[in-house]
């Protein structure tokens, strides 16, 4: 039974997606019904699995044999953690499908959109339950393609195609390392099985896997694609770029945790610390509401990575779940605000508290969870990570002690900055003078928001009652104070009406431009040089042989077309030569 459930988990959304891709553009109702039904079925399946799976179970059948023990199975590896993550994925997917029906009500290409969302859901669930490394890779890559297709969904937006390509190419870069890492793991262990591959520590494969994680989860230095990916529709930002795909890298590290040696974890910790602060600082200076949330995602995923680095993968996964809930909530609510105001920019927003009460309260819950205010879920999950870091400082975890110190300090600093930008967002959108008419979103958009507010608020308490929370201590109180301090700073600045956004922060330390200069431009120059070489050298050689043959032919034709005197000269000259040859040869004999 577990096997059937596990198999159906990615298979049902995949079928729904394939059928949906065949629908004509007019069939909106059918597409919507299919999409919602697929997501609901996946959610129900995941809930059933979560209820049934108490310990790791595997199963599957053989797909192809490459020899030398390298066999690809279609197999699953179910753990309680996997089941819970699957539930989170299913929930967010369902919420997004319902929300999209209303958000994209005037979009002409809704059916392929819904089908692509179902396809993405299938791919993510495949990554979650896969027991075979190759199958994991397949899900990983399909997620990348769906992300590309969905970011570029609105073809009228001028920045969408470039953003989609950027997202795809940057994550692809990381995926090269990911593929190499998987290959090395499989060769070393003579098996593609996730369970066996994930048990043996190996530094080089771990570092290569981290490349893929950095790409997909938007960590430094491959984080530049995520803010630009906000050109996609808001529900997509909620699903892919907040709740699921960016968290997939963290999930894979947790899944293959045994591979990561102290060296690899140290690298991961440094990356996490840098990204945490980078994302948070960049978020304080953005004017586009979705960009604030995007940079916030970068920062929060770095939190999860930091948790992994200091040796508390369970805490990292817990933060993954709470982040999925509150970030998806924040994005969907931001979508409602954008829909009401008609613009992404916070300069056009203000005083929406009274006009959009439901949105206001849900977003408050989401921002509170983000900042880590008790009793909301974010408080508990962040504190678990910080506590884990503190433990690793005191009693050396799997990574070196200095890594834990770095992660702890970065985490605490980020808490303060997170409070700052969360408060800034909250004040600018909902307080101050009302700039125009606005209203709460329609029901299909409103209900997913409300429903996501529930786990954002309560998930932490549920875990608390399950008894895995260490309790309030000086660390959690200190973090809370830092968050409040950050919020207070933002409030003071807002009160004064000052809004100087330092250009350095607004451009995220110009890392995007650095990447552009170091990688993009040389590659484009190389590509155009290759193209020119191909046109002039290769094509030129081919066409040159044609041209050369024609020229030679024309030359010979001119000589052939000699007038009488020249022809006579040729004949007599030839006769002379023959005569001389005859004389010489006969004379020699």
């Amino acid at each position: 039974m577990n096997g059937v459930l596990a198999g159906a988990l990615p298979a049902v959304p995949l079928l729904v997606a394939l059928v949906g891709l065949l629908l004509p553009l007019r069939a909106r109702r059918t597409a919507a019904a299919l999409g919602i039904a697929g997501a609901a079925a996946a959610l129900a399946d995941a809930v059933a699995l979560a209820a049934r799976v108490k310990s790791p179970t595997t199963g599957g059948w053989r797909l192809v044999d490459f020899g030398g023990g390298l066999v690809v199975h279609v197999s699953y590896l179910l753990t309680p953690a996997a089941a819970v993550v699957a539930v989170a994925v299913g929930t967010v997917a369902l919420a997004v499908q319902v929300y999209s029906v209303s958000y994209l009500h005037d979009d002409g290409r809704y059916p392929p959109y819904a089908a692509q969302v179902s396809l993405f859901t299938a791919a993510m669930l495949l990554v979650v339950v896969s027991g075979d490394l190759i199958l994991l890779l397949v899900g990983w890559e399909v997620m990348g393609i769906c992300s590309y297709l969905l970011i570029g969904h609105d073809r009228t937006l001028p920045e969408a195609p470039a953003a989609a390509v950027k997202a795809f190419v940057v994550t692809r870069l990381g995926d090269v390392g990911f593929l190499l890492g998987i290959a090395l793991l499989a060769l070393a262990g003579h098996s593609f099985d996730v369970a066996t591959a994930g048990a043996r520590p190996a530094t080089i494969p771990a570092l290569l896997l981290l490349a893929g994680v950095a790409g997909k989860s938007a960590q430094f230095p491959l984080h530049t694609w995520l803010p630009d990916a906000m050109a996609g529709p808001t529900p997509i930002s909620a699903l892919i770029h907040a709740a699921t795909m960016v968290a997939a890298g963290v999930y894979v590290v947790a899944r293959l945790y045994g591979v990561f040696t102290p060296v690899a974890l140290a690298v991961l910790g440094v990356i996490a610390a840098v990204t945490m602060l980078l994302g948070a600082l960049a978020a304080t200076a953005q004017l586009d509401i979705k960009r604030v949330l995007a940079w916030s995602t970068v920062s929060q995923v770095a939190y999860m990575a930091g948790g992994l680095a200091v040796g508390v993968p369970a805490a990292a996964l817990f933060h993954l779940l709470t982040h999925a809930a509150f970030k998806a909530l924040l994005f969907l609510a931001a979508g409602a605000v954008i829909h009401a105001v008609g613009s992404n920019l916070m300069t056009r927003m203000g005083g929406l508290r009274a006009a959009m009460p439901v949105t206001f309260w849900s977003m408050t819950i989401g921002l509170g969870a983000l900042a880590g205010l008790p009793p909301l879920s974010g408080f508990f999950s962040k504190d678990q990570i910080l506590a884990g870091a503190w433990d690793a400082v005191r009693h050396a975890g799997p990574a070196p002690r200095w890594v834990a110190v770095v992660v702890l300090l970065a985490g605490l600093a980020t808490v303060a900055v997170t409070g700052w930008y969360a408060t800034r967002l909250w004040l600018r959108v909902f307080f101050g003078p009302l700039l125009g008419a606005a209203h709460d979103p329609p029901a299909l958009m409103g209900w997913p928001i409300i429903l996501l507010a529930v786990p954002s608020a309560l998930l932490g308490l549920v875990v608390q009652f399950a008894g895995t929370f260490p309790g309030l201590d000086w660390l959690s109180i200190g973090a809370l104070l830092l968050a409040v301090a950050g919020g207070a700073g933002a409030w003071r600045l807002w009160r004064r009406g000052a809004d100087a956004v330092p250009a350095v922060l607004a451009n995220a330390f110009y890392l995007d431009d650095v990447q552009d200069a170091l990688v993009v431009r040389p590659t484009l120059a190389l590509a155009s040089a290759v193209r020119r070489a191909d046109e002039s050298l290769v094509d030129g050689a081919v066409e040159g042989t044609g041209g050369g043959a024609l020229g030679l032919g024309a030359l010979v034709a001119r000589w052939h077309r000699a007038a009488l005197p020249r022809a006579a000269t040729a004949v007599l000259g030839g006769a002379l030569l023959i005569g001389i040859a005859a004389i010489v040869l006969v004379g020699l004999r």
Partner: protein
Amino acid sequence: MHPAIPYLTAAVLFGLGVYGVLTRRNAVLLLMAIELLLNAVNLVLVTADATVRAALPDSGQVFALFVIVLAAAEVGVGLALILALYRRRSSIAVDEIPLNEAENEDRSEEVNA
């Protein structure tokens, strides 16, 4: 007598004849150069007749007579051709003679235009 002298004379006449054939543009002058060629050959034949004892006596001179007759016939026909060419094109330069139909039409258009 030393036969080398008339032989060499004939060789030089032949060379001059070839030069004339290849250099002259006027068709009549070309025919004159051809006559030089034929005369050189005749000279060789006659000298050979004087030098060599052939199976048939005087055969060299007989050949020379035949060559003279042939030359006369050739000049007659050749001049008829030259006149026909002149009538059509008003020019008897041999390097302007068209070699195929297309050139013929081009050039007759030029002439008639």
